[in-house]
């Protein structure tokens, strides 16, 4: 499904940037500040994240307190700003709390995949030879599964739950990240300034830290931001199939799943969690676009 892992186009920019040195990040910041759309989106995103993380501060009701008499009420009913869900819980508060898990399902797999995939890619790119082949060929195997198929297969086999959802999505995201990180590392490694550093006797660790990591990070971060959007949608999709996060935890996909039967009773209420998934995912995509332009990255 929502997979944009397009073919990785080699990025000569990485090398160019590497040569540009420190001034690069300053220019990125300047360009970002000038991009008003991205700025606005990032502020909106920050608000969503803040409200989810600090849900107890912003919530008006206990997200678990139900009332059979106040089920599926429209926004504004008796102090429920966004109405109530299928067991009469305050939808506004649940969306806040649900945001925690949805964002977690968006960010955690990408973060883990970055950590694991990024390191594998670095290792493969830096060492070359056998190690490179070993890592890259195993990634090719994982690549042979269309992404959602892999996530569904893993969750279906291991069972539902937050942990398994994150695990499944992490495994799904590792291969593309390894590829990008390997490609960029290979390019940077053969760049003149790295050769020079090596020739001057720098240890591999410091070469990686100072030269390669610095250059690999940009493209990977841009890619990862757009992956978060995919991750949120995929996690919600797994919940929708009954393979994802399990109740009574609030999570947008699960709320959507539980509320979908209310689409005849109160369409507005039933559509809300889906709209939240959409808005958040859109924010991450737009941010990724903005970063891409600002960082002058092509993936």
């Amino acid at each position, binding site marked *: 499904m929502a997979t944009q892992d397009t073919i990785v186009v080699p990025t000569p920019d990485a090398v160019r940037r590497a040569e540009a040195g420190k001034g690069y990040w300053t220019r990125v910041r300047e360009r970002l500040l000038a991009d008003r759309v991205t700025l606005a989106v990032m502020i909106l995103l920050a608000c969503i994240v803040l409200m989810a993380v600090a849900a107890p501060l912003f919530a008006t009701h206990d997200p678990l307190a139900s009332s059979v008499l106040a089920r599926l009420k429209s926004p504004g009913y008796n102090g429920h700003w966004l109405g109530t869900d299928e067991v009469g819980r305050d939808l506004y508060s649940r969306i806040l709390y649900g945001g925690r898990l949805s964002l977690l399902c968006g960010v955690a797999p990408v973060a883990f995949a970055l950590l694991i995939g990024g390191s594998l890619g670095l290792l493969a790119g830096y060492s070359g030879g056998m190690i490179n082949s070993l890592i890259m060929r195993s990634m090719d195997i994982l690549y042979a599964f269309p992404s959602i198929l892999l996530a569904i297969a893993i969750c*279906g086999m291991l069972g539902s739950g937050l942990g398994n959802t994150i695990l499944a999505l992490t495994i799904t995201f590792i291969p593309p990240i390894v590829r990008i990180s390997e490609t960029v590392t290979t390019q940077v490694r053969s760049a003149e300034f790295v050769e020079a550093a090596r020739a001057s006797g720098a240890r591999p660790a410091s070469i990686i830290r100072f030269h390669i990591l610095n250059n690999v990070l940009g493209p990977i971060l841009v890619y990862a931001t757009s992956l978060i959007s995919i991750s949120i949608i995929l996690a919600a999709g797994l919940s929708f199939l009954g393979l994802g996060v399990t109740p009574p935890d609030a999570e947008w996909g699960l709320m959507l799943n539980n509320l979908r039967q209310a689409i005849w009773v109160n369409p507005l209420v039933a559509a809300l969690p889906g709209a939240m998934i959409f808005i958040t995912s859109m924010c991450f995509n737009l941010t990724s676009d903005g970063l891409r332009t600002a960082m002058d990255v092509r993936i």
Partner: protein
Amino acid sequence: MWFFIVRRVLYAVPILLGVSMVVFVLMKMVPGDAADIMIPPEAPKEVADMIRARFGLDQPAHIQYLRWLQAMASGDLGTSIFTNQPVAEELFGALANTMKIALPAVFLGFSLGVLLGALAAYYNGSWLDKLFSGVAIAGVSLPHYWVGMVLVAIFAVSLNILPGQGMGPEGFPTTWEHIQHLILPVVTLSLIPMGVISRLVRANVLEIRSMEFVSALQAKGLRGPRVLLHIMKNAAPSALALMGLQFGYLLGGSILVETVFNWPGSGSLLNLAIFRRDIPVLSATILVLATIFVVINILVDVLQALIDPRIRR
């Protein structure tokens, strides 16, 4: 060129072996086997053992794997534990049903995507660009199963002009009744390819536009649309490649949309097999979908290599 193709195809063999291993290991991680799900507790142990023996679940793992691999390689996809029908029959029937929505969806997504992307790039910076880019980014940000639900509520129930579920008559869609059933799922399914392709085309066109040969063309006096045509020719290969990949994703990823529309395709077969722990169906479906995906990847590579010889390294 031939060397490239042969090498590419040969390389698919170890990949597929690896894929089969991953699938098998996944299947082994299932808590409880199909016999557990199928047989109520009081069934005598011999019945449970018979089911296990019949499907080879009582053998050591490596034997099971080798047997399974041998059967798969010889084209025998096994028998469904639940329906007792040959998996091949069920799977290929289901795949054909999925094709019915995946092909038009990719086609629609591709046409719309190229159109929107090219126009957006052509009018770069204008409000049209913003609108089309917005549509594209919405396409990749929307949870499409949710869109499907909303479309059903509007068009099938409120307006009652399109059927909200099912495939209608079997066979190749020729009648209006048949096509009616296709509309909502195809539109829903085309959102992602539309968004992805449109974004790629816009980026590519912008990039190519900034290249020297375009300036040269303009200097020669070629006007807007003609230049765009030239640009599109250059942007086509990567868009085509992406379309191939997206088609692969749709085959496996239509599972959510098929669930919403009760479409009897490969996605719903997979979903069913997961919940029933119908291992023969599950493993064969995943393996076949992955194989198709690998084949599509090869085709895409070959296509790209044909268009751009530099890739054949």
